[in-house]
C-alpha cells in the first residue's frame, strides 16, 4: 500500500485555500516581482516604445540623489514624531479606558470615530481647521488670546510636518489605544493588589507594573504605526502636495510625483522597492531592539 503524495486532508486544504492563493499571487506576489522587473528598466511613459534595460541604474540614481535623502529624512522625522506621539497619547487613553467608570462604554465607542473616518475626510477636515483665513485653529487661538493675528499654518515650512503629523496622530490614536488596552487587560490584577498591599502609591504602581507589562503592546503599536507613517501618502497629497517649497516632500509623495507626474516608472518602482526594504529593515531592527529589552 503506497502512501499517496497528497493526502485527503491536503487536498481539502488546497481546495479551500485556492482563492487566497490566487489573490496573493495575482495582487501581491506578481506586482512585487513585476515592480522589481520594472525597476531594472528605464520605463518612461513619455517614450513608451523605448524601454532599455538599465540594471541597477535606477537604484543608483535614486540613492545618489540628495533630494531623495532629504525626502527620506522628512519621512523619518515625520514617522518619529507620529510614532512617539501616538505611543504617549494612546497609553494615556488606554490607562483611562482600563478603569471602571460610568460612561466608559460611550467613550470607547466614540474613540472609534477617528479610526473609521476616511483619510480624505480627515485631510479635508484638518485642512479646513488649519486654514490661514477662516480656520478653527486661528479662530480658537485668537479667541483665547494665545495669538494676536492669524497665522499661516501649513504654509509655514517649519510647521508643515508637525501639523500633518498631528492629523495623522489624531486618526491613529484609537487603534493604538485599543491594542494597548488589550495588553493592559492581560496584566493579572493580583499584581496590582500585591503592590497596593506593599504600600506602593498609584504612580509607583504605574511605573513598576503597568509600563513594563505594556512592552509587548508598545512593540506592536510602534511597529504598526511606523509602517503606517513611513508609507503615508494621503495627507501629504491632500494638505500640502509636498509643499511649501518641498517642506513636506516625503518619500511616498516623491514616488507619486516621479511615477505619475514625471511618468518615470522605472525610478518610481526603484524608490518603492527601497521604501519597502527600508520598512522591512526597520521592522526587523525594531523587533530586535524591543525584544532584547523584554
Amino acid at each position, binding site marked *: *500500500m503506497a502512501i499517496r503524495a497528497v493526502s*485527503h*486532508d491536503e487536498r481539502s486544504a488546497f481546495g479551500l485555500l485556492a482563492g487566497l492563493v490566487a489573490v496573493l499571487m495575482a495582487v501581491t506576489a506578481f506586482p512585487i516581482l513585476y515592480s522589481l522587473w520594472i525597476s531594472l528598466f528605464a520605463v518612461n511613459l513619455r517614450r513608451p516604445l523605448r524601454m532599455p534595460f538599465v540594471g541597477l541604474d535606477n537604484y543608483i540614481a535614486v540613492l545618489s540623489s540628495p533630494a531623495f535623502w532629504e525626502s527620506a529624512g522628512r519621512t523619518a522625522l515625520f514617522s518619529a514624531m507620529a510614532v512617539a506621539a501616538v505611543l504617549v497619547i494612546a497609553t494615556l487613553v488606554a490607562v483611562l479606558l482600563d478603569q471602571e467608570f460610568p460612561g466608559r462604554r460611550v467613550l470607547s465607542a466614540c474613540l472609534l470615530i477617528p479610526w473609521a473616518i476616511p483619510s480624505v475626510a480627515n485631510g479635508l477636515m484638518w485642512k479646513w481647521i488649519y486654514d490661514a483665513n477662516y480656520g478653527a485653529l486661528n479662530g480658537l487661538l485668537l479667541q483665547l488670546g494665545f495669538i494676536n493675528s492669524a497665522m499661516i499654518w501649513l504654509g509655514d515650512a517649519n510647521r508643515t510636518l508637525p501639523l500633518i503629523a498631528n492629523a495623522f496622530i489624531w486618526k491613529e490614536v484609537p487603534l493604538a489605544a485599543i491594542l494597548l488596552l488589550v495588553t493592559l487587560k492581560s496584566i493579572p490584577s493580583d499584581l496590582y493588589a500585591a503592590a497596593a498591599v506593599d504600600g506602593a502609591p498609584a504612580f509607583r504602581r504605574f511605573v513598576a507594573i503597568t509600563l513594563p507589562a505594556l512592552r509587548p503592546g508598545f512593540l506592536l503599536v510602534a511597529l504598526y504605526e511606523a509602517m503606517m507613517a513611513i508609507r503615508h501618502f494621503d495627507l501629504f497629497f491632500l494638505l500640502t502636495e509636498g509643499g511649501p517649497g518641498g517642506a513636506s516632500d516625503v518619500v511616498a509623495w516623491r514616488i507619486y510625483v516621479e511615477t505619475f507626474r514625471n511618468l518615470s516608472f522605472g525610478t518610481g518602482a526603484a524608490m518603492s522597492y527601497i521604501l519597502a526594504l527600508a520598512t522591512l529593515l526597520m521592522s526587523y531592527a525594531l523587533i530586535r531592539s524591543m525584544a532584547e529589552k523584554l
Partner: protein
Amino acid sequence: MARIRFQSVTKRYANGATAVAGLDLDIADQEFLVLLGPSGCGKSTTLNMIAGLEEISEGVLLFDDQIVNNVPAHKRDVAMVFQSYALYPHMTVFENIAFGLRMRRVGEADLRMRVMQAADKLEITHLLERRPSQLSGGQRQRVALGRAMVREPAVFLMDEPLSNLDASLRISMRAQIRHLHTQMRSTFVYVTHDQAEALTLADRIVVMKDGTIQQIGTPDEIYESPTNVFVASFLGSPTINLLEGALERENGAACFKRGTLTIPLPALQGGARNIVLGLRPEDVGTPGDGPQLHGVVDTAMPSGADQFLGVLVDDAMLFLRVGKDVRVRAGEAISFGLNPERLHVFDRETGRSLRGAA
C-alpha cells in the same frame, strides 16, 4: 459490523515525532477494546486513525477486508464520543443528536423516532429543546453519547468520555456504557488513562507506551500476568511494590536476594541476574508455611473497607493492603505470608517478565 485490523501502522507527524510505531492490532467484531496508557502513549492517535481523523503514515488499516487508509472520516461508519463532548453550541440537544442522521439523509420521521428513542434511553427527553450551554456536565455527556448512539455505527469510539465527570457519576456511567455495548452490537474502542475504567469495561485491554503496544490481553491477564514492569506498575491501585534485587540460585533453587531479604522463587528458570520483584499490595496474607516478609510498620492508614500499611522491609518501603482486623501501630514489627505464585519477577535490564514464556 466491523472487525478492525492494524497492520504495521505508523503515524509520524510533520515535525518528525512518531506517535505510533509499527502497530499490529486485530479488534474483533463487537469486541469492547480499551486502549490504556499514559498521556502521549499514542492511544488517542490510534483511535483517531480508526475514526479517519488522523492520516496513516505507513501500514494498513482494514475494516473487515476493506482498506480504509484513504477513506475520510465522514465516509466511515464510525461514531465518536469526545472527552470535551464537543456538542455543537448553536444547536439544541435534539439537533445535536440528529445532526449525524441529517448528514446521512435519514428521513424526518425515522430521524425523529431514533432521536426520541435514544433520548428516552438516556433519560434526556426533557432536555431536547435546550442548548448545550444550559446543561450540566453529566447531561452533556449523555447528549454526546446519544449523538453517537443514534447513528447505530459499526464502530463506536470513545476518547476518555468520562474524564470530565465527577467520581460518583463516573462509576454509574461505566455501567451504562457497558450496557450500551451489549445492546448496540457494535465494535467499541475506548481510550482511557484510568486503569480502573479499563479493568471494569474491557473485553480486552491494550496497554500502550511511547507509541508501541506493551501488552494485549483480558483485564485478568493484564492484571495478573503483566509482561513488563511498565504494565505491572500502570495497573493496580495503589501501585505494585517494586523491589530491586538479585536472582540467585541456592542449591539449584532460585531465590530473590536483597540485603537481608531472601524470598524463594521456586518456579523460576534462568541464571543469576539483576531482577525486579513485584508485589501487589493485596498479595500478602497471614504468616503461614510459605515464604515470609518481616518488617516494621511505618504508617497505618485505614481506608473504609480495609487499611493500607506502609511497611519498612529491609531498607525498602512497601505499601500493603490488609484487613481492618490487623491491629498495628507505627513502629511495631509485623510479618506477612507470601504466595510465590503471585509474585511478579522482571529482568532489571529489559523490564520484561521472567515468568513462564510471557
